[in-house]
């Protein structure tokens, strides 16, 4: 439909077009409403399904109906109803709605809520089952623990859902708020989904915060953590932190004792548009301010820049941490993974093979950015 926007009557039609299919001249009022309401939008959370699909009643109905006449069906239904009612009344005082694997829950302060139930202080048997969500308000804190995993402390105003707990993987979802994780499970076992990145424990303690707008921050206090979204990875060793933003994923990690100018430049780099002057200025500042210890950030920068910028990063990185044997400039500029891994390992921040193992277990086929869009995750290879 074509319309002349100068005609008031047509302007109305143009706006209706925008309301209908977002075509035509944008309606500022509708755009404003869309912008205001975007945080309520569906967050594309993965669907968690039982490993075995339930029995499909439709397949059996065709077999059953010819076998049973109507009176027989009525009698069978009556017997089933009576049995069901008896079973219900027999089990009612003892049964609980929850079942399956669960983590222990303790109230550290106030009365955190699991669904509609409050967890009282010193309540001995509170459990968080797979699929359930625990919510803390302004006055409550909680602790989640599992003997094979470790402990996760939940700060006030947080919302955490238990997604998966089995021998190979423990997974929670932090929608908003702050958790402090102390994990003794093998690296790669504990995973936290957030609106803007996935945090993978690589043997550590860390604090993870998610803001209401979906952005987040991760501070590692021991060991290291992998931050991942759509093929974009960041590794955060002890003493370092990393921000993440919706749609963009994890930014450049940096040590918290870096100079204020360095930290500001990293933040500016992460938030600036590609090829913008701000980004170029931020990159120049990062390179000039970088200490040997900040090679952590430079290593990540290699993946986030192109062409001439990557040459600049390489040059500064090579001055701070000379490339080990087997690492060449052309290889790094071409993002040769084995060379990048060798250089990472020379930083003394943890063996990257741990991460590669996790990647292999989570994304067994092609690399994450090229894998089929729908792929069932597999347990780690034995």
């Amino acid at each position, binding site marked *: 439909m074509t319309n002349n926007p100068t005609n008031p009557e047509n302007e109305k039609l143009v706006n209706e077009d925008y*309301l209908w*299919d977002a075509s035509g001249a944008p309606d500022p009022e509708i755009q404003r409403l869309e912008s205001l309401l*975007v945080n309520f*939008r569906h967050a*594309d959370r993965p669907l968690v399904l039982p490993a075995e699909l339930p029995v499909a009643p439709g397949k059996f109905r065709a077999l059953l109906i010819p076998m049973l006449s109507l009176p027989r069906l009525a009698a069978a239904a009556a017997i089933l109803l009576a049995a069901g009612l008896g079973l219900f009344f027999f089990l009612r005082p003892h049964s609980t709605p929850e079942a399956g694997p669960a983590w222990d829950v303790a109230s550290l302060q106030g009365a955190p809520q699991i669904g509609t139930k409050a967890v009282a202080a010193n309540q001995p048997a509170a459990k968080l089952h797979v699929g359930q969500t625990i919510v803390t308000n*302004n006055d409550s804190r909680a602790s989640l623990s599992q003997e094979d995993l470790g402990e996760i402390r939940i700060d006030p105003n947080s919302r955490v859902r238990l997604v998966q707990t089995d021998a190979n993987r423990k997974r929670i979802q932090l929608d908003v708020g702050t958790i402090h994780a102390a994990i003794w499970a093998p690296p790669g076992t504990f995973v936290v989904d957030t609106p803007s990145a996935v945090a993978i424990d690589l043997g550590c303690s860390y604090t993870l915060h998610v803001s209401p707008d979906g952005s987040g921050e991760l501070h590692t206090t021991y060991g290291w953590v992998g931050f991942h979204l759509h093929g974009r990875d960041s590794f955060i060793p002890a003493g370092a932190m990393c921000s993440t933003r919706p749609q963009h994923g994890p930014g450049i990690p940096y040590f918290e004792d870096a100079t204020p100018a360095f930290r500001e430049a990293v933040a500016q780099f992460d938030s600036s548009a590609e090829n913008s002057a701000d980004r170029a200025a931020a990159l120049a500042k990062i390179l000039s301010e970088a200490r040997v210890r900040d090679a952590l950030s430079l290593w990540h920068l290699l993946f986030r820049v192109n062409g001439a910028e990557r040459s600049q990063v390489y040059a500064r990185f090579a001055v701070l941490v000379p490339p080990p044997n087997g690492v060449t400039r052309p290889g790094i500029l071409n993002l040769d993974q084995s060379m990048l891994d060798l250089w990472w390992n020379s930083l003394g921040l943890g063996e990257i093979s741990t991460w590669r193992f996790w990647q292999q277990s989570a994304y067994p086929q092609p690399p994450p950015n090229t894998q089929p869009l729908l792929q069932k995750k597999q347990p780690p290879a034995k």
Partner: protein
Amino acid sequence: MAALSELGTPRSGPPAVNAVHETGGPDDALVRAAQRGDRPAFGLLYARYSRMVHGILLARVPFSDVDDLVQDVFLQALPRLNTLRDVSRFPGWLASIARNRATDFHRRTKPTDEFDEESASVQTGTLTPTANHVSHASAEAHAVLDAIRSLPDTYREPLILRLVEGMTGPEIAARTGLTHGSVRVTLHRGMQQLREILGRRTSPPTGGAL
């Protein structure tokens, strides 16, 4: 539930099932494949319809509960999928499950169970300046959402699908099983009523639309 697996949410691309061999509507092949136990097909149905289910629920239940209920709706739908004889009715059938789940939610939940962490922070004055800024925008967003929810059922669902979930009118029609004309009219009238409500709330003394 002895073991769990996870289905991702593809953002684009063709179906991963043999849709070309099937006939009927665009998602009929997926529904048939899901009925045969094809998990990726069900995952694709989730990817395609989860926004619709989210919008239907958001029109009726507190935002903080919507994500969990979306999962519940699909977990309820899965074992019942074989009861659906006419696969072309899948969109309307799924929408009905979502509406029933919302009704069931209100039946089981006490009004005092609703928890809003942000309003709690505002009331206690514990927000930082940045958080206050975010909170102001968020409060306005909640007010707009409340205004949409105050509209008659007929209007609030399409408006939420359009303004919150970002679906276009044709997408809404395809996903809900309604006709284009019906969706177009309800969007138009719903938007008119929403403008009136928001205008009444904010017009004196500035007279602005929002």
